[in-house]
C-alpha cells in the first residue's frame, strides 16, 4: 500500500504521465489550422475543426460517400427539373451562443459565402451553381468589363450580381430554405456537404461586426480576406463540440451541453500541432496522444506499428478521395521558358508542341513504372488508378487498362513520334519537383532512368525546387511535364473529370487539351441527374482518356489511421478531413 503511494507520488513528481483521461481525445498532427471561418477555410486542417463544431444541412452516413443522412435539415425535395432545392430545417436546434437556429441563419451563411468568396476560398464552387460565376462580384466584373470599367456599367453589373445572390437563397417562414440554381446541376447536393457549407449563427456574427446580411454593406465584403474578421478565430455553430480556444496552433474543444443530437462520449478534445514526427511518435508511445498523424507508410512500418498499445486501422478497400496525374503539357509557354531548352526539335530541347504528338505522350506514359511506385514508395500498399477519379466515386471504371512501364512500347512510340524524326534528333527536357515530395521526385527520376536508357540522344533533367518556385512555374504554364494531384472538394465525379479532362477545366486548360468529343461527354454528364447514365458517360471519358493519353494517373497510397488501442468507433470517410468525427468515437 505504502509502496504504491510512494510510487504514485514519484510518478506524478517526475511527470510520468499515464494515458489521457477516458473522456479526453488528444490528436497530435502537423500543419496549422488556417482559419476557423467556414466561408474561408479550404484546407484539411481547418475543415477538420469546422466539421466537428459547425454542421451542414446533410452529411455522409458514416463512411459512405453515396448514402447521406440529414443533419440540420430533416428532408428536401428537388423541383423545376433540378433548378430548385427545398430543404426543411430541423426545429429546436441551438447555437453555441444560445441563439435558436432558423432558416435566416442558413440564408445568411450561404449568402455570406457568395458575397465574400475571396480568391483563396472554396466559395467558387458554390457560386458556380447558384450565381453562375465561379468568382466573386468584383472579380467577375473585371472579367466582364475589364480593369477600369465605366462606373455606371460597374454599378449595374454589381447590382445584377447582388440580385442573383439575393434570389438564389430564400428563407420562408422559419424552417424552409430554398435554393434557386443558375441551371440544373447534378453536383449541387454534394457541394452542400462540404464542411464549409455550414450554418453559422447570423445574429452573433452580425453583432460582432461581420457582414450585415443586407445589400447595405455588401460591396465592402466582396472578396474580403475573412482571416481578419471575427469568425476567423471565434465559432458559434450547432455541432456537438464548441470551441474553447485556438491560439493559432492548438485547438481545444469541449462537448456542447445543448446539442440537439446524441451526446458524445468524448467530452474534451485537444488537437495539438506537433510538426516533428519523432516527437509525435514518442508521445503516442507514452500515451500522451490518442491519435497521431504519420506521414508515410515507411515510417508506419519501421517506427510505429510495433509500439505496444497502438492500433493501426487500415482496410484494403480504403482509398483517399483524391487523384494525381502526370500531365503532358501540349501548350507550355513558348517564350522565356527555361524548361524547354532550345525550344526546338534539335536535340538540345523540345518544341512547345512536343506533347501535341500522341506518340510522345504514349512513350512517356509507358516510362512510368506504376508497380515500382507502389512497391518502393507505398511499401506495396497502394491503388492504381485507371482514370483521374477516386475509385470510390460514381463513374470510376476499374476495368479500363493502365499504362505501365514497357520499354518495347516506349521505343515503338518514340520511333513513330514527329514522323520518325525524334528518334534521330533526340531531345532534352527538364522535369521539376518540389523538394520533399517523394512521389514527384520518384516519377521524375523514373522518366530520367527509363527514357535515357532507351536512346542516348534522349536527355531528361530532373530538378528539385522549393514550393514557391514550383508554384510559379506551374502558374506561368512553363512546365512541359508536371505531376500534381487534386483532393475532392465534394463527392461528385464532375469535380475531377471536369478539372482534369475538359478543355476549360483547370488542368485540362493548363495542358491545352482540345478534344471536342471529350468536352461533349463531360458537359452532357453535367446536365443529367440519372446516376447510371452519368456513370456510363464517365466510363466513356475514361476510355477516351486512355486512348489519347493527355495525362496518366499515378497510384494512390492506401490510407491508414494510427490511434492508441483503447480508441473505438474509428472509421474512414475520405471526404471528412479527420476521416471520422469526434462524436462517433469513444475510449475504453
Amino acid at each position, binding site marked *: 500500500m505504502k509502496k504504491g503511494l510512494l510510487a504514485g507520488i514519484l510518478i506524478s513528481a*517526475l*511527470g*510520468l*504521465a499515464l494515458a*489521457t*483521461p477516458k473522456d*479526453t481525445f*488528444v490528436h497530435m498532427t502537423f500543419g*496549422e*489550422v*488556417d482559419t476557423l471561418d467556414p466561408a474561408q477555410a*479550404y*484546407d*484539411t486542417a481547418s475543415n477538420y475543426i469546422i466539421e466537428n463544431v459547425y454542421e451542414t444541412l446533410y452529411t455522409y452516413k458514416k463512411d459512405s460517400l453515396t448514402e447521406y443522412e440529414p443533419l440540420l435539415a430533416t428532408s428536401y425535395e428537388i423541383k423545376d427539373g433540378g433548378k430548385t432545392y427545398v430543404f426543411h430545417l430541423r426545429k429546436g436546434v441551438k447555437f453555441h451562443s444560445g441563439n435558436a437556429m432558423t432558416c435566416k441563419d442558413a440564408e445568411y451563411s450561404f449568402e455570406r459565402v457568395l458575397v465574400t468568396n*475571396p*480568391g*483563396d476560398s472554396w466559395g467558387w464552387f458554390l457560386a458556380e451553381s447558384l450565381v453562375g460565376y465561379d*468568382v466573386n462580384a468584383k*472579380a467577375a466584373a*473585371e472579367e466582364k468589363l475589364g480593369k477600369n470599367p465605366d462606373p455606371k456599367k460597374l454599378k449595374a453589373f454589381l447590382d445584377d450580381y447582388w440580385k442573383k445572390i439575393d434570389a438564389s437563397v430564400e428563407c420562408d417562414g422559419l424552417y424552409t430554405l430554398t435554393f434557386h440554381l443558375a441551371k440544373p446541376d447534378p453536383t449541387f447536393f454534394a457541394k452542400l456537404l462540404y464542411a464549409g457549407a455550414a450554418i453559422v449563427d447570423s445574429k452573433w456574427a452580425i453583432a460582432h461586426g461581420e457582414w450585415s446580411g443586407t445589400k447595405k454593406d455588401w460591396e465592402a465584403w466582396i472578396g474580403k*480576406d475573412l*482571416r*481578419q474578421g471575427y469568425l476567423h*478565430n471565434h465559432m458559434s455553430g450547432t455541432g456537438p463540440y464548441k470551441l*474553447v*480556444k485556438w*491560439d*493559432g*496552433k492548438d485547438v*481545444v474543444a*469541449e462537448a456542447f451541453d445543448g446539442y440537439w443530437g446524441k451526446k458524445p462520449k468524448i467530452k*474534451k478534445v*485537444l488537437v*495539438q*500541432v*506537433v*510538426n*516533428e514526427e*519523432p*516527437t509525435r*511518435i*514518442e*508521445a503516442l*508511445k*507514452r500515451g*500522451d*496522444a490518442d491519435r497521431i498523424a504519420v506521414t508515410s507508410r515507411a515510417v508506419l512500418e519501421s517506427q510505429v506499428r510495433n509500439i505496444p498499445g497502438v492500433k493501426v486501422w487500415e482496410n484494403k478497400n480504403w482509398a483517399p478521395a483524391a487523384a494525381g496525374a502526370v500531365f503532358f503539357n501540349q501548350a507550355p509557354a513558348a517564350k522565356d521558358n527555361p524548361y524547354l531548352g532550345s525550344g526546338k526539335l534539335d536535340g538540345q530541347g523540345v518544341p512547345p508542341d512536343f506533347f501535341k504528338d500522341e506518340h510522345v505522350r504514349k512513350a512517356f506514359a509507358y516510362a512510368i513504372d506504376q508497380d515500382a511506385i507502389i512497391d518502393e514508395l507505398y511499401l506495396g500498399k497502394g491503388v492504381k488508378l485507371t482514370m483521374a477519379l477516386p475509385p470510390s466515386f460514381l463513374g470510376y471504371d476499374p476495368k479500363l487498362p493502365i499504362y505501365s512501364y514497357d520499354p518495347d512500347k516506349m521505343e515503338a512510340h518514340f520511333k513513330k513520334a514527329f514522323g520518325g524524326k525524334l528518334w534521330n534528333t533526340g531531345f532534352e527536357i527538364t522535369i521539376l519537383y518540389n523538394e520533399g515530395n517523394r512521389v514527384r521526385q520518384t516519377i521524375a527520376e523514373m522518366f530520367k532512368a527509363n527514357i535515357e536508357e532507351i536512346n542516348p540522344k534522349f536527355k531528361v533533367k530532373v530538378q528539385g525546387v*522549393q*514550393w*514557391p518556385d514550383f*508554384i*510559379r512555374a506551374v*502558374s*506561368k504554364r512553363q512546365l512541359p511535364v508536371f505531376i*500534381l*494531384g*487534386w*483532393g475532392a472538394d465534394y463527392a461528385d465525379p464532375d469535380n475531377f473529370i471536369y*478539372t482534369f479532362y475538359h478543355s476549360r477545366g*483547370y488542368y485540362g486548360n493548363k495542358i491545352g487539351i482540345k478534344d471536342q468529343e471529350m468536352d461533349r461527354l463531360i458537359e452532357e454528364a453535367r446536365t443529367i441527374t440519372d446516376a447510371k447514365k452519368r456513370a456510363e458517360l464517365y466510363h466513356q471519358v475514361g476510355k477516351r482518356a486512355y486512348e489519347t493519353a493527355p495525362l496518366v494517373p499515378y497510384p494512390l497510397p492506401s490510407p491508414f489511421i494510427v490511434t492508441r488501442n483503447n480508441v473505438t468507433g474509428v472509421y474512414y470517410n475520405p471526404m471528412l478531413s479527420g476521416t471520422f468525427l469526434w462524436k462517433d468515437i469513444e475510449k475504453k
Partner: protein
Amino acid sequence: MLTFTVRRLLQLPLVLFAVSLIIVGMMQFLPPSARAAAFVKSEQQLAHIDEIIKQYHLDAPFYVQYWTWVQNALHGNFGFSRVAKKPVLEAFAEKLPVSAELAFYAFLPMLIVSIWLGTLAAIYRDKLIDQIVRVLAVLFWSIPTFVLGIALVAVVYGYLRLFGIGRLPSDLIIELAQASAVGKFHYYTGFLTLDGLLNGRLDVTWAALKHLVLPALTLILVQGAQLVRVMRSSMLDELGKDYVRTARAKGLPDRVVYYKHARRNALIPIITLAGLMFAFMINGVVITETIFNLPGLGQWAALAAVQLDQPAILGFALLTAVIVTTANIVVDLLYALVDPRIRYE
C-alpha cells in the same frame, strides 16, 4: 555612460529602416506568383493563383508595397501573419514569452556551469578533470542540436517516461483553456512558470518547469560546450600573464589569484559571447523549439521564411535588430563593470 547608451540607442531607427528596406527589397526579387505561396494551402488552390495575386496586391510595385507597410507600421499595424494566423504584434506578444522563458531557464545555469567548468579545466590544465571537460565540450559542441534533441525525446521522454514535450501536459492545456475562457486563469506575463504563481496555481508552475527541462538541457549542453571552451582558453591566457606571476610571487594564495584576479579578466570574451547567445535564445531557437514543440519565435520565424510570410519576416527581422542592438549595448556596459579600465564617457 548615459550619453553612450543614448547615442547607441539613437542608431536603432536607422538600423530598423535599413533592415526593413533590405528585406522588402529582397522579397521583391521573387515574382508575385512565388510570393503567393503563403496563400496556397492545397494543390486545388493553384487553380486560383491569379485571383490570389490580385486579391492581396502581390503585383503592386516595390515602393507601393514598402510605403504601405511603413505607413501601417508607423500606426502600430505590422500586418497580418499568415503563418501565425493573427496580426504580427499579437503573435509576438504570444510567442516572445515562450522563447524568453526557455532562454531564461537555460541561460543562467549554462553560464554558471560553463564558467565553473572552464575555470576548473584551465587551472588543472592537462589533468584528468581538464581532459574530461575538454572531451565533453568537443563532443556536445559537435553534436547537431537536432540529434541531441531527438535523442533526449526518445530516451528521456519516450523510454524513461520523464518530463514532457510542449509547454504543458494535455490535461492542463485543456483545463487552462477552459479556465481562461471563463476568466478563472489569466495570462499576465506569458511565462507559464510565473503565471502559475500569480494565479496561485503551483501545479501549473511545476508542470511548466518539468516541460522546460529537456529543451533547456539541450541548449545548455550545446551552447554551454562552446562557452566552456572559450572560458578555458581565455583563463589560460590570463594565467600566463605577468600580473598573475607577480601576484603569486608576492605570496597571494592560489584561490585569490585564480578567482579574484585571473578569472575576472578572463570573463570579457565570455560576456561578449554570452550576450549574443542570450539575444539569440530570446529570439527563438528553431530546432530546439520544433523538436520539443514549443510555439516560440524560432518555430514561427522558420515557417514564415519557408512560406514567404512577408509581414512576419519583416516583424521578426526588426525584433532581431532591436534585441541584438540592445544586447550589444548591455555587453558593452558589462565590460565596464568587469574591467575598471574601460569607461564610457
